[in-house]
């Protein structure tokens, strides 16, 4: 504890704060003259003084230093090799979380159900992009294009081909994946920055085509999409020819919430599937190959792996998941228009992935929920959403550069049982 030093340090910080914030916050224009707003500056400077003082006091103690140092371990600190089969508290809780999520819509209003549907759609998108960016290390700035292809696949598919939700689901996934392949094949020989620019362009091309090809897509007016059906039961007050409305079949009163509860449950199932898929993929040769490619492309090529097809498979897998998410999005709103697929959506999905941690599954789920729910909870601050967001990202990058969740790698044993004993502690360099 070094109170005197801390006090001095905080005092200097306060003076600097006065210089920085004084003119900006203290002088308020009033017509051609200006007024001095001293209390506002005083509050800011006070906060900075107290904050700095407390921070200095904390790091002058051993405990405080240890606390901050744990963030600075960097790479090795955020990857842990653990025994397989050890179930973390989280893994044990998954069935309960799923069950809770499944019964949740029966207790909350329509408004919150739609918000949660959107959050789940973003989980899907986050998981999809996490395969591309997190596992394969391909920076994709136009991911929203595949989301748009999925959504328009349902809307236009029903308009021109008369397909319903259930057919559109796999069709859109395949369609998005083939678009991924068409885009990917020529450009995947490129690296990092170049690839990012090309994908950014691709995202914009898709949006502009949807916006301007009015004859086919109805342009900015958008297109309507059919809602999801349960074995041909429609969630409408009066069903179309040859269909029975859900409420009549079950002899209950019509309630418009039913439709949303149904989509909610469908998206939840899709999220569960996607989580399972991601969980398996990282343990499969293809998932390992993606991670290897992210780590070191040169080594991959020297080991007989075709980096183009491996990248392509990641691209297509991510695109397919985004396509499915798009179908859910279209079915939720019953309407799609190009404005929903602007670049900022791509950035938001990328933010979810970075925030959650490249390659992490749980992290992406938490990040998606945070990104969608926080602005809704803080409705009155929603204008500042991106400010808060930016701040969160900066803080994240400083304290957890590898994402919210520590990445775990499985320890693997031979049939003879080799590898079971741990001789050296993690992080200790053996000779």
């Amino acid at each position, binding site marked *: 504890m070094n109170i005197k030093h801390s006090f001095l340090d905080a005092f200097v910080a306060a003076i600097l704060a006065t210089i920085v914030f004084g003119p900006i916050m203290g002088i308020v224009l009033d017509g051609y003259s200006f007024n001095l707003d001293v209390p506002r500056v005083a509050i800011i400077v006070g906060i900075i003084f107290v904050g700095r003082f407390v921070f200095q006091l904390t790091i002058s103690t051993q405990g405080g230093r240890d606390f901050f140092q744990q963030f600075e371990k960097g790479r090795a600190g955020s990857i842990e090799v653990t025994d397989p089969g050890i179930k973390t508290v989280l893994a044990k809780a998954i069935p309960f979380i799923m069950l809770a999520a499944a019964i949740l819509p029966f207790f909350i209003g329509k408004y919150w159900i739609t918000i949660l549907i959107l959050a789940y759609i973003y989980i899907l998108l986050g998981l999809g992009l996490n395969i591309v960016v997190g596992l394969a290390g391909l920076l994709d700035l136009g991911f929203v294009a595949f989301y748009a292809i999925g959504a328009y696949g349902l809307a236009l598919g029903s308009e021109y081909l008369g397909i319903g939700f259930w057919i559109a689901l796999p069709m859109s996934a395949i369609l998005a994946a083939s678009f991924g392949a068409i885009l990917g094949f020529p450009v995947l020989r490129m690296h990092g920055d170049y690839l990012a620019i090309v994908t950014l362009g691709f995202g914009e091309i898709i949006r502009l085509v949807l916006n301007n090809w009015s004859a086919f897509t109805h342009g900015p007016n958008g297109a309507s999409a059919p809602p999801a059906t349960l074995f041909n039961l429609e969630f409408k007050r009066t069903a179309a020819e040859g269909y029975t409305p859900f409420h009549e079949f079950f002899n209950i009163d019509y309630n418009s919430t039913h439709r949303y509860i149904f989509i909610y449950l469908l998206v939840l199932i899709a999220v569960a599937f996607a989580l399972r898929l991601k969980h398996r993929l990282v343990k*499969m040769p293809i998932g390992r190959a993606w991670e290897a490619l992210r*780590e070191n492309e040169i080594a991959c*090529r020297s080991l007989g792996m075709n980096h183009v097809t491996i990248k392509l498979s990641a691209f297509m897998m991510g695109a397919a998941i985004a396509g499915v998410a798009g179908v859910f999005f279209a079915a939720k709103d019953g309407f799609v228009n190009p404005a929903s697929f602007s670049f900022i959506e791509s950035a938001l999905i990328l933010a979810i992935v970075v925030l959650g941690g490249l390659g992490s599954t749980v992290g992406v789920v938490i990040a998606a929920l945070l990104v969608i729910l926080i602005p809704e909870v803080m409705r009155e601050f929603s204008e500042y959403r991106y400010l808060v967001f930016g701040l969160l990202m900066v803080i994240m990058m400083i304290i957890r550069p590898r994402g919210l969740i520590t990445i775990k790698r499985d320890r693997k044993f031979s049939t003879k049982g080799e590898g079971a004993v741990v001789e050296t502690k993690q992080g200790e360099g053996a000779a």
Partner: protein
Amino acid sequence: MSKNILTIDKLSMRFGGILALDNVSFEVEKGSITALIGPNGAGKTTVFNCITGFYKATSGALTLHTRQEPTSINKVLGQPFQLDDIFKPRQLASRIFYKMFGGTHRVNMAGLARTFQNIQLFNDLTVIENLQIAQHNTVNKSLFAGVFNTKAFKESEQASIDRAYELLEVFNLTADANRLAGEMSYGQQRRLEIARAICTNPEMIALDEPAAGLNPNETEALAKMIQMLRTEFKMTVMLIEHDMGMVMKVSDFIIVLDHGEVIAKGTPDEILNNPKVIAAYLGVDDDEVAA
């Protein structure tokens, strides 16, 4: 069946205005340990990058005689279209195929593995995973089997892990099997890189300065390991090395490169007494050599 595993005929490599390799020709005999030596900047690593498919040779023919058939390295990297392709649809089809799916990896699939001067590992993956990735072309890659974790998939995965442990034991790395590759010591990383290359079941392995940064004891162990590659794994070894003591000890045949040209070929004894080689290493004036 040729007794040479690799034939290089008039290989030239040009980077802009610099002719890095000028009509380099040599053969590597099956089962031999061949060393490629030469002063810095002689073009040794360029030769390696050409034969392992990392560079496309400007001209010259590179042929691998592995897996019971000759493989043209130029061809698998993808060649430009020729006028007579129009009349030979089969040739055109093969060109298109290699343009789309060809590349460096085909050289490894043909049976030539390599290591790098600056170690190229997957640092954030475990040692076992590094070795499993090298078995990518032999494991069960079925999406269905993997997602549903079928019995066949589990067996294939376990087999790849067991193979990895086998090699780790040979290279004395078993204790580090579940550590991250990036946190191992330099010497261990070198050994892991060689083990990983062997995991791809090559018939020939090209080692780029394997002894760089190793202490004398480690170099000694490495020399034994290289001999073991030949005796136990039945591989042909080609290496670039600056440690002359080791080169003279392990290699059957030495090729000396200087300024992109082969200045001498022969057994270690022949090379030791070759005036041109001595001149290249000690930097004697050109006219003195001629004299």
